[in-house]
């Protein structure tokens, strides 16, 4: 009697668990189906596609490593865009990081109008790229733009031709990117600064530490994880970036502002070589994967450390 009751309740429990599981699945399915079809499948597909030749007519041809061989041996544009991607990253990342930290430290003082300053510094980040890029290009117009007018007025006879010049095109885009993104990273830094325990500063003051020493011994160590996090985020965002180049210079003049992601776009949507484009995308993926793994490992180290 007792036994049958037990089995009954077990059965009942089992049924209940099944029922609960079904409810749980009903919660995740709407998102999971969409996510699986429109994001997950393409990610897996991109790996397969990089070993194929395909212009969308008929079926893809499996060609093994040929795309990769072509990329590394017969495509000078690939190397140029890879080089430009690294130069772009090298230009954007350190400046954004230092500027964001400096601004966050300024903003972390007792301050009137903090909300105002924060909003102003953050706004370029939410403004549409198409709109700010066209303004930026007008300001830096080599013939009549206000920047060059000012430079000439203070006696510089041959100011740079900015986006129209081979040498200055990439720095112009780097400038635009720093200007647009710094406010975002400043806010991330500001949150980290506000999380630092005040007792640490008081202890440092009791030990007679000055402003710079306080920064070196209290602030900097406390925000190292944030710095690392921002560094990784910045690296990924610069490596994948190409919309600014597309909007401002179309990768030119020549190939002066052609970057890796732009090369992917061109190979796929201009040359219709979808397999080859996917092979180039794998290089981008590899770079981002390395960054992510480093971040993951160090993050673990940081948490072990704490």
């Amino acid at each position, binding site marked *: 009697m007792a036994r049958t009751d037990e089995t009954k309740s077990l059965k009942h429990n089992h049924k209940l668990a099944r029922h609960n599981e079904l409810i749980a699945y009903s919660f995740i399915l709407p998102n999971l189906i*969409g996510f699986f079809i429109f994001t997950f499948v393409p990610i897996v597909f991109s790996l397969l596609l990089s070993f194929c030749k395909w212009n969308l007519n008929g079926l893809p041809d499996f060609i093994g490593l040929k795309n990769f061989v072509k990329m590394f041996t017969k495509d000078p544009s690939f190397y140029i865009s890879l080089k430009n991607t690294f130069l772009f990253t090298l230009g954007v990342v350190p400046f954004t990081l230092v500027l964001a930290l400096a601004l966050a430290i300024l903003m972390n003082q007792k301050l009137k109008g903090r909300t105002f300053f924060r909003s102003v510094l953050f706004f370029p980040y*939410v*403004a549409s790229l198409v709109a700010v890029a066209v303004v930026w290009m*007008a300001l830096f117009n080599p013939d009549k*733009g206000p920047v060059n007018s000012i430079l000439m007025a203070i006696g510089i006879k041959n100011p740079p031709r900015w986006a129209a010049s081979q040498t200055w095109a990439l720095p112009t885009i780097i400038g635009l990117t720093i200007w647009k993104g710094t406010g*975002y990273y400043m806010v991330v830094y500001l949150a980290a600064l506000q999380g630092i325990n005040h007792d640490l500063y008081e202890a440092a003051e009791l030990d007679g530490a000055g402003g710079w020493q306080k920064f070196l011994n209290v602030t900097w160590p406390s925000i190292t994880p944030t710095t690392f*996090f921002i560094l990784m985020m910045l690296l990924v965002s610069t490596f994948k970036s190409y*919309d600014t180049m597309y909007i401002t210079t179309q990768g030119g003049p020549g190939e002066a502002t052609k970057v890796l992601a732009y090369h992917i776009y061109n190979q796929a949507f201009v040359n219709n070589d979808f397999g080859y484009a996917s092979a180039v995308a794998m290089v981008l993926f590899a770079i*981002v994967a390395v960054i992510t793994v480093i971040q993951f490992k160090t993050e673990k180290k940081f948490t072990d450390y704490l």
Partner: protein
Amino acid sequence: MEKTEMQKKQKLTISYCISRVILYVLLIFMAAIMLVPFAWMISASLKVEKDVFSFPIVWIPKNPQWSNYVTIWKKIPLLIGFLNSAKLTIFTTVLQLLTSSFAAYAFAKLRFRGRDTIFMAYVMTIAIPWQVYMVPQYIMMTQFKLTDSHLGIILMHAFTAFGVFMMRQFFMGIPNELLEAARIDGLSEYGIWAKIMLPLSKPAIATLCITSFTFEWNDFMGPNIYLSTTAKKTLQLMLRMYNTQYSSNYALIMAAATVALIPVLVMFACLQKYFVEGVASSGIKG
């Protein structure tokens, strides 16, 4: 003794004052760098074309050309762009909010087989940029006949790993006791999601709303690849059309750019607290 103490104090206040002045000068300088391009844009949008680049810069034009703001709507179907962008933004944001919070509830509070595996799959894809898989995604959308369609764009943008991840992190912080109490009171899981989780998650909802809104409203490359019919193009594409077709007419370009920025500016001004808190708390970009 007392005198030196006073001197010390005085010295302190003087150096304090100096550091204050430096602080404000630096901040105002940086704020100016951020604002000047926008100021120039608005100023240029109110000028006749021949005055746009006159030097020295006239910041406030003598005869503001308000008519520029009338002309822009006639040259390129900006209004259609506005409506298309609004449609895409509203649909993706609402869908994203509903489905992510729905999934996040199961990931945070319910037990089922494969939960951690599926969640890991979500998390791992956060780090993969769209540029890596935009090509196969495009091919797939061609097979589905969803290119040049708003539905296609909505479907691609509405189900993000970021949304699920962010909502789940927030839901984890809501105490289980609350849910248990509700279950004893006979509330179903769907009821708990609607009556307990959502009302308690306003900051997370605001953050996701804002992230989704700014992404969709400002997105350029997505619509640029997918939408070819003019009647379907978004505001950013219309703006781009303006910039290329009327490339010599800077006054009109600047007027169009100003108009395109207004919705984001309004949204930002109203919700800037949430913008900043969202960035600070999640620290992850969409």
